[in-house]
Each structure stands twice: as structure tokens, then as C-alpha cells.
């Protein structure tokens, strides 16, 4: 146990360096063709690309990237000049502090607009910076009402805020025949907002909330709260949270012998929920804003292209990021200018037929859209039931 020698220390440093180099060395060589002679228009995308919701962040990036690639394939001209769009994707690590740094970074880099951020907690602080710079920000997934309540004419979102969806889900739960309802809320701003609206609406339709339980978005064990709901003899469980928890929750519901209906919001209406829930997911209900993707013009194409390009299935918000990017590009094309002064009014008044439904904004920048679709898992797939106002 002699003191560590200098030699050994350097050997360890050496090991570390070798480790790193071998790491980098895994890669081969290739080259990228540069499209010269075109004006480059930079558009930003921000979402968490590291950390525990990085899979959702990458999904957003993929959606935005697909829209950019399609726009480039159309070889558009703006202001009489051929243009090529370039996506600058940044990682905000889902941290509010980082979000303002990357926002400023995008502004410095000269982006003309930004698709993002993913979480409300990062979208709101960043929106001040985009507003100062006067460029458009379209969030594909931030549902916190505060975001569009700041009086910024640069802040938009293409996803319904929680109020609408919660209302429809509450009424739908009663329609399914539920009388005693147990609610599970994942304590994120999405989960809280949706759960509150759901409760209001379910009670107004004549249901009774027998239990309101909570978890958080890092947990995987729900047996304690499910047991409590079981003791309250609930006949329906509403989970206000994401698919990565809803899937395992289905299995635990079955294992505990609960005989209940299961309903969740758009956070659960995904392919991943089906994979994680397996056979136990059968019979679960979920909602999703807008019309079903395969009913929309371009929706089937989008799904196909996404799976082919990125070799994975859509997580949740990629179609929204795709629509947001397309709406921004359409506004630029309509204005025939990349100056925010010219395109912002066009964006505010846009009528874009997106894959998640028609995209147009109200006074505050929230999406104008009245429809929520409902689905049920049947034979391992999401089967469409109906679309409600």
C-alpha cells in the first residue's frame, strides 16, 4: 500500500487516453457533399438529447429533421434566391438554466426560428430570449398554459394545452361506464394539468374520484399506490403521465388482480406503450389530439418515412415537431422572406394541413383545434374508436 507512484498515475492517464481514442477510432471515414451556391437558412431545434428523457428529445429532433429534408428536396426559392435549410439541433438537458444558454446560442448562430423546447420548464425561460431577438418559437410539446400567457407575439405551440384533452377524457371515462375513478398523476406539469382537468370533467359528468394518487417520472414501482386504489374499489384508473411508466403499470395492475378499465392521455398513446405493456396492455384506452395519423393526408407517409429514415418507431411528439417545422417553413415561403418581421404575421395567420391535424393559431399563439381522438388497444395495436370535440 505504498503511495501511488507518479508512474502509475501516468499509466492511468494513458489508459484513459487510449480508451478515448479507441472510442473515437470505432468510426470509419466518409465525406459529405456540400451544396454550394445556395443561401443557407438556419432553423433551430431544442430538446433534451441527454438525460433520462433523451428518447423523447431525439424523437422531436427527428421529426424536425424530416421536415427540413423534405423542404430541401423541394428546392425552394425565397426572395428570388435558391435556399437550403439547415437544422441546428441543441441539447437543453431538460434543465431550465441550460435552456436559456442554448437559446442565446441559437440566436447568436443566426437562426430565423426555433422548434422547441420539449418541456414547459425549459420552453418558458427560453421564450424570453427568442422574444427579445424577435424570432418565432414553436413548441411541439410544451403544454403549460403560462407559455402563451406572457404576451409574446413570437411564442406558438402546435399541441393542445391540457385543458381540452382533460375535458374530453373526463367525459369519455364516464361514457365507458366508470363510476368510481382512481387518478394517478406523475407530478410533472403535464401530468398535473391533465389530471386536474380530467377530474373536473369526470365529476361534472357524474363520476366520483375515489383516489388521487401520485408517482414521479423516475419511478417504476406502482404497486403501493395501485393497492390503495384497489382498496377504494375503483372501476377505472386514469393515468396522467407518459408511456414509459404506463406500460409497466399495466403489468402491475394485472399482477395485483385489479379488474379495472385503464385510460391515459396522449403521453401513453404510443408504440412504446404497446411494447412495454405487452399482452397486459390489451383493452387500455388512450387519447390523442387531432385525428388519427393514418387518416390524415400525409400521415401514413410520415410514419413510413420516419420508420425508414431513423430505423425506429415514432415516440410521441415527432409528428408535432414535423408539423411545427412545416408551418414555419410555409410561413417563410408565404412571406417570401426570412425576416421575422415579414413572416411572423404570416405564421400567426397560417392555415397549414399538418399530419396531426390542421395547424392554425389563436390570438395567444395556442393551436386552434377542437378535436381529440380516442383509441383502444386491441390485438396489440391501437384501434381508433372515435373523435370527440
Amino acid at each position, binding site marked *: 500500500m505504498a503511495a501511488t507512484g507518479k508512474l502509475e498515475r501516468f499509466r492511468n492517464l494513458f489508459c484513459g487516453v487510449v480508451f478515448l481514442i479507441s472510442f473515437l477510432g470505432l468510426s470509419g471515414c466518409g465525406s459529405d457533399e456540400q451544396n454550394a451556391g445556395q443561401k443557407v437558412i438556419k432553423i433551430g431545434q431544442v430538446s433534451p438529447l441527454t438525460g433520462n428523457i433523451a428518447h423523447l428529445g431525439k424523437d422531436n429532433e427527428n421529426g424536425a429533421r424530416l421536415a427540413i429534408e423534405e423542404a430541401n428536396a423541394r428546392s425552394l426559392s425565397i426572395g428570388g434566391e435558391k435556399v437550403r435549410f439547415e437544422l441546428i439541433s441543441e441539447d437543453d438537458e431538460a434543465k431550465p438554466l441550460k435552456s436559456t444558454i442554448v437559446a442565446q446560442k441559437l440566436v447568436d448562430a443566426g437562426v430565423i426560428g426555433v422548434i422547441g423546447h420539449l418541456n414547459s420548464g425549459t420552453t418558458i425561460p427560453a421564450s424570453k430570449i427568442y422574444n427579445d431577438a424577435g424570432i418565432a418559437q414553436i413548441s411541439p410539446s410544451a403544454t403549460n398554459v403560462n407559455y402563451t400567457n406572457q404576451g409574446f407575439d413570437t411564442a406558438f405551440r402546435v399541441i393542445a394545452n391540457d385543458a381540452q384533452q382533460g375535458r374530453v377524457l373526463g367525459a369519455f371515462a364516464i361514457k365507458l361506464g366508470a363510476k368510481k375513478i382512481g387518478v394517478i398523476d406523475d407530478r410533472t406539469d403535464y401530468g398535473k394539468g391533465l389530471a386536474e382537468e380530467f377530474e373536473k370533467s369526470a365529476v361534472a359528468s357524474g363520476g366520483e374520484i375515489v*383516489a388521487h394518487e401520485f408517482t414521479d417520472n423516475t419511478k417504476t414501482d406502482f404497486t403501493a399506490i395501485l393497492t390503495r386504489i384497489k382498496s377504494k374499489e375503483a372501476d377505472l384508473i386514469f393515468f396522467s403521465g407518459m408511456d414509459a411508466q404506463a406500460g409497466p403499470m399495466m403489468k402491475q395492475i394485472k399482477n395485483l388482480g385489479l379488474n379495472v378499465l385503464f385510460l391515459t392521455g396522449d403521453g401513453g398513446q404510443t408504440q412504446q406503450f404497446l411494447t412495454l405493456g*405487452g399482452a397486459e396492455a390489451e383493452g387500455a384506452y388512450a387519447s390523442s389530439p387531432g385525428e388519427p395519423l393514418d387518416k390524415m393526408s400525409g400521415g401514413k407517409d410520415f410514419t413510413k418515412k420516419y420508420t425508414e429514415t431513423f430505423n425506429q418507431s415514432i415516440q410521441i411528439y415527432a409528428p408535432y415537431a414535423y408539423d411545427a417545422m412545416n408551418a414555419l417553413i410555409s410561413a417563410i415561403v408565404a412571406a417570401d422572406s426570412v425576416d421575422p418581421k415579414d413572416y411572423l404575421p404570416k405564421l400567426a395567420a397560417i392555415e397549414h394541413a399538418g399530419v396531426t391535424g390542421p395547424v392554425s393559431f389563436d390570438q395567444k399563439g395556442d393551436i386552434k383545434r377542437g378535436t381529440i381522438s380516442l383509441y383502444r388497444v386491441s390485438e396489440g395495436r391501437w384501434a381508433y374508436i372515435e373523435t370527440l370535440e
Partner: protein
Amino acid sequence: MDIFLQQVINGLVLGSVYALVALGYTMVYGILGLINFAHGEVVMVGAMVFLTAVSVLGGGPLVLSNSTIIVFAVLTAIFVCSILAFFIERIAYRPLRNAPRLAPLITAIGMSILLQNIAMMIWGRQYRTFPELFQIESYTFAGANVTNVQLFIVGISIAIMASLLAVIHLTKVGRAMRATAESPQIASLMGVNVNTVISLTFIIGAGLAAIAGVLVSANYSIAHYSMGFILGLKAFTAAVLGGIGNLTGAMVGGILLGLIESIGAGYIGDLTGGFMGSHYQDVFAFLVLIIVLVFRPTGIMGERVADRS
């Protein structure tokens, strides 16, 4: 009353998982006095390697029975985790054995960040699901439900604990470990190869971590590169609650923490008249921890005073 029994079962299962991970923490701590923050990530790697091994073996040209696949995949996971832990110790901890106390804590955190992100590169950002290698059966017992996986988790934790205690107290290697824990200098004077003993400790801890990783992903049928951190944190809490450095303490602490969490989540709402609900589950768990430590500053089973601050 059947609800109470069910909550106890829930707590026991959760607690056994914590205990299994906590054993790894406590073994390393007992010998080196080091919080191995990267241990949770080793658990994650165990789960991920197992799933990869299953898909490779299952999709290979050989037709293997499910139980063969499980055995080989578990062995692969244990093997990979052991090698990983061996190198973690060699690279990040051994050079710092005589350094200021917080230095290895920082390298441990660095290791944890490193492993998590490398895992993200290798296995991707998606959640992985546990393959259906066996039928999950649910048994009803006095109004409470329990599955075969859950019974298996509790059983294997107890078996591993017992065999670990046997190894530590009955074998020569175990005696060397105990000697090293008492005093590395004197142990080496007595002919114990301290470095080998420490490497061995890490390897055994990693083997347990791999098994824990497989059991966790089997029970919740989910695996993800970020699963290790929170699990490791809870296990570390459990180890401290039981008295860190003490193997029986880790087991007791783990099961106690599991019980506190599930009973807390089940009854806080009723106890506080709806003022607080299951969202205060962790607050409740930490409060119990603080109260225990106020009255027993070295945990429930801890004897040695951790005077290395």
C-alpha cells in the same frame, strides 16, 4: 386487512431489490470506506447486457430452450459486469486510495456519467422491454396477490445474503476481506494481498449488481440506460439506514426502506386526512431515515463509527 398484507408484500419485493443493490454498496464501503456511486450504473449494464444476450441467443442459429438462454444470459451479464467493475476500480479508485476522501467520490460520479452516456450510445435512447421468457403467474393468498417473479426475487435475495455471509465468515477469502476492512496495512503485513482482495470485492459486488439488474428488469419488464442512478441512490440510502459496511444491515435497511415506502404511499393520505398524499412517499422515507440516524447515528446495525470525515 388484506390491503395491509398486500402492502407488506409490495414492500418486501421492492425492499429485496434495494437490498440486493445495497449489498454491493456496503461491501465496497466496508472495505474501502468509499461510496461507489457508479454501482447503480453497473446494475443498469447488467440488465442491458442480459437483454442483449437474450436477443442474440434467442435469434441465433441454435435452438435453445428458454431456461438455457436465461442461464447463459445471466452468466454473460455477471461476466461483463465483473470485468467492468474490475476496470472501474483499477482506473478510477485504486490510484486514489490514499488521496483526500472526496477525490474518489468525484471520480465515482465521473464514472457514473461516463457509463450512463456510453450505455446510451450502445443501447440507444429507447426503453427496452423484458422478453417473455417465462410465464408470469399471479397467486392469490389471503386476499393478496404475488407473482412468481416476486417470490423469486425475495427468495434469491435471501439466498445470496446467506451465501455472502457464509463466504465472509467461513472461508479464507472472507477472512482476508474482514482483515482488510479492519486495517489494510496490518492485513498486508499478515500476508493478505490487499489489492486482490479489493478487486475481488468489486467483482463480487458487480456480480450481485448484474443479478439485481436482471431481476429488476424482469419484475418491472423495463430497462433503460438511466435506470441505475435512482435505484443506486435508493440502495445507498438503504445501506446507510441499515448501517453502512454491515452486510446484514444492508439487507435489513433495504427491506425496511421498501416497507416504509409502500406503507407510506398506502397510508399517508389516510393518516393526514388527505392533506398529504402518496407524493410525499419519499419525504416519509427520508424522515424515517433522519429519525433513525438521530437516535442511532451509525444506522440500525452499524457498529463502527464512520470517522473519516
